[in-house]
């Protein structure tokens, strides 16, 4: 079942992806981890553990199964303050 998701990028991840927001067509259901490995690596070359992920503004773990219409945020290590 194909589905479309929106992915948000920030900080150096946005720089490397050359965008802050991008839409992806997924041919089948993928977990966050699978999506990261198949679509974002190696543009985002750091290992999965370097990132946090949220879906629809709630933190999720990498096993979360992406659903049509989800807004996935790829969150680099924070450095506020």
């Amino acid at each position: 079942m194909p589905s479309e998701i929106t992915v948000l990028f920030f900080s150096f991840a946005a720089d490397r992806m050359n965008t802050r927001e991008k839409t992806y067509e997924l041919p089948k259901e993928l977990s966050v981890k699978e999506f990261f490995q198949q679509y974002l690596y190696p543009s985002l070359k750091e290992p999965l553990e370097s990132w946090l992920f949220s879906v629809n503004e709630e933190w999720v773990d990498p096993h979360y199964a992406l659903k049509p219409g989800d807004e996935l945020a790829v969150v680099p290590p924070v450095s506020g303050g």
Partner: protein
Amino acid sequence: MDYYLITEDPINLAEALSMIDDPSTGAQAIFLGTVRNEFEGRPSLGLYYDVYPPMAQSQIRKIGEALKEEFDIRHVVIIHRIGELPVGAASVLVAVSAPHREQAFAAAKAGIDRVKQQVPIWKKEHWADGSSQWHDEPEGTQEPR
């Protein structure tokens, strides 16, 4: 009252203090973070703060609510400014009021520690030599601004 804000506008300290004002509190502890003119010895002109707004906003609220559960404090204000900030500008404020000073200090300290660890905000240093660099980028590369 408690107040949580992610904003591009300058931080208003007097307003924050009026929010934590309470006749039952004798101790106000305030942390104000400002943009420094150097980082690890390298001269800097300022910082750009990137943010994931809705997550940052909900995260500072969660931090404040946890502080109120963990410490004997009455009110919390957390404000983080984002966007382009020159040296000297205030980037973050944590202000708490409490009956007694030990709890006020402990809560303010925990508050700013958590803001720096848990809020989706990222800063890019604008070095004095004209290059820019994201903080905490693994194998960060420096590119011209």
